[in-house]
């Protein structure tokens, strides 16, 4: 066991949606059928978000009607302070937030996965150094550092993605390393080693495929958290500086008109909730199906 720098047993930071393992065995309201239905529903929503926005009658930058038109038959979700169709902008915003979350999680899996794989396969001092570094990152408050990183680089969507990706890998490194160590002790890996295969081949062909399921579970549980963090950063003005539809920024701009035209601030925030909710629900279902 590698002693952790923080002195405490390794835990997942709460801002990444960590929790105790207690009570994981049986969860509320979860049956295989319900889980599959949830996943199919989530997949449908993702498909709709990917296909639908360009098919809508108005583009995200079109002036579709009078500014601040309430939701109604002419404009299903109303228009914003400039007369853009909110339905279109929210649909694009939901798509962007989902795609950004995927980018962050993929980069977290890639960076953390490589570090975890190297640490788990190498063992010894390489393992000790890499894991102590990981623990150190886990002990620092990630979202606060993201604020500073993005502010330093200048606000833009790319910089926000870079900033979040910088703090998002350590937990994946930890999960991967733990699983790699467990898989590497299995007989089939021993057999591959005795057969004289190279370490690289053993790592990628024999250890990694058997170590994927906890990484998949962690990643799918993460979607909701990343969506919420990105929305908060965008709300604070750290997202894209141009007119790209971003739900957080749209909601923040709508605050000015909150008491006369509530929909401009409320509906984009509801869009964030829907994406996070579907992401969290799907993640929960994936965990149940994989761990069952």
């Amino acid at each position, binding site marked *: 066991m590698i002693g952790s*720098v*923080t*002195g*405490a*047993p390794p*835990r997942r*930071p*709460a*801002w990444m*949606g960590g*929790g*105790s393992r*207690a*009570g*994981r065995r*049986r*969860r*509320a*309201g*979860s049956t295989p059928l*319900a889980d599959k239905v949830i996943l199919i529903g989530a997949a449908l929503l993702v498909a709709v978000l990917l296909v639908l926005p360009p098919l809508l009658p108005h583009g995200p930058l079109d002036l579709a009607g009078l500014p601040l038109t309430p939701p109604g038959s002419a404009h299903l979700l109303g228009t914003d302070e400039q007369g853009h169709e909110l339905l279109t902008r929210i649909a694009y915003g939901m798509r962007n937030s989902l795609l950004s979350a995927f980018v962050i999680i993929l980069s977290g899996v890639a960076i953390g996965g490589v570090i975890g794989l190297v640490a788990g396969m190498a063992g010894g001092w390489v393992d000790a150094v890499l894991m102590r570094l990981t623990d*150190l990152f886990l002990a*620092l*408050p*990630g*979202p*606060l*550092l993201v*604020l*500073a*990183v993005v*502010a*330093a*680089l*200048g*606000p833009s969507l790319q910089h926000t993605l870079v900033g979040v990706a910088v703090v998002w890998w350590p937990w994946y490194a930890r999960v991967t390393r733990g699983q790699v160590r467990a898989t590497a002790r299995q007989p089939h890996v021993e057999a591959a080693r005795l057969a004289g295969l190279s370490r690289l081949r053993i790592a990628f062909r024999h250890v990694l495929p058997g170590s994927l399921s906890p990484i998949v579970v962690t990643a799918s549980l993460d979607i909701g958290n990343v969506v*919420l963090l990105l*929305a*908060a950063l965008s*709300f*604070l*003005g750290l997202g894209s500086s141009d007119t790209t539809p971003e739900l*957080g920024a749209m*909601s*923040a701009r709508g*605050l000015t008109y*909150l*008491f006369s035209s*509530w929909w401009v*601030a*409320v509906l984009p*925030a*509801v869009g*964030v*909730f829907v994406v*996070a*909710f579907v*992401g*969290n629900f799907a993640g*929960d279902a994936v965990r149940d199906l994989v761990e069952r």
Partner: protein
Amino acid sequence: MGRFVLGRLVSLVVVLVALTFVVFIIQSAVPSDPVAATLGGGASKQVIAEKRHELGYDRPLYVQYDRFLQRLSHADLGVSLRTHDKVLTDVGRFAPATIELAVVSLLFVTIFAFVLGLWSASQGRGSGAVRVLMIGGSSLPSFLVAILLVLLFYSTLHWLPASGRTNGGTATGFVLVKSVLHLDPSAFWDGVRHVLLPAMVVAIGPGVAIGRVLRGGLLEAMRQDYARTARSKGLAARTVLVRHGVRNALTPTLSMAGLQVGLLLTGVVVVESVFAWPGLGLYTAAALQHSDFPAIVGVTFVLGAVYVVVNALVDVLQVVADPRLKDS
């Protein structure tokens, strides 16, 4: 116990040093030249170069890091580009508002977590409603909750104010504490009315997260032999849950609570900017808008240090609550 605390202290120092290093690295990643920015657009190249040399920006990074640490040890966080005050002075001025907000929020976090945890654990397993509610609660963006509460309690019901800390005048310092010390019930009531909405919004995320962990711990405890014994000797289900469950579920809950402080501090930035609450969060939000980099770095460092120290305290508290953890 002494050895554990000492070990924890050592790792605390290591993490704090790491924090200074990370903050330093972020600071030196600023693309805009801080020297050119302070001297203004009219400065000639030679003047800028001389100033750079004077301030040490042309030295190697490790020399600059050394200087950075020396300035930190003299509690020098630089000067805000927006307020033109020392960042530490600003932090001292805006911290009381945030501390009061955070303390009231912690009260709400405790209430939310216990109500949610105990209620959902008493529903037993297999309840779809509990699952939807838990996941829904942890999917709420804080600005959505803030907007909805403002629309309901301020704009529709006219029960609570939606911005600031007091009615009229700019409030500084500890408003609630001061009103208690001055035995001024109307000022206290005014302060409470202002803090209720922002504190509830800050508390929802951490409250739901801690409630989920508490629920997990409670269900785990209810599977144990002592819970079965308690039930079979005729205790009511609720008594078993409260008397035998809560204590044993407290350890993971406590560690979650410490970690949630990080979320609470970030949530404060969003919530303070919605409610115009004149604390560190609003200060940070304004700094972000004006690219006031010294202020952002200073607040990041102070709040980061608070987070690290609180988590060290929580670790020690956990061992006090459950001495078996000392050996793990």
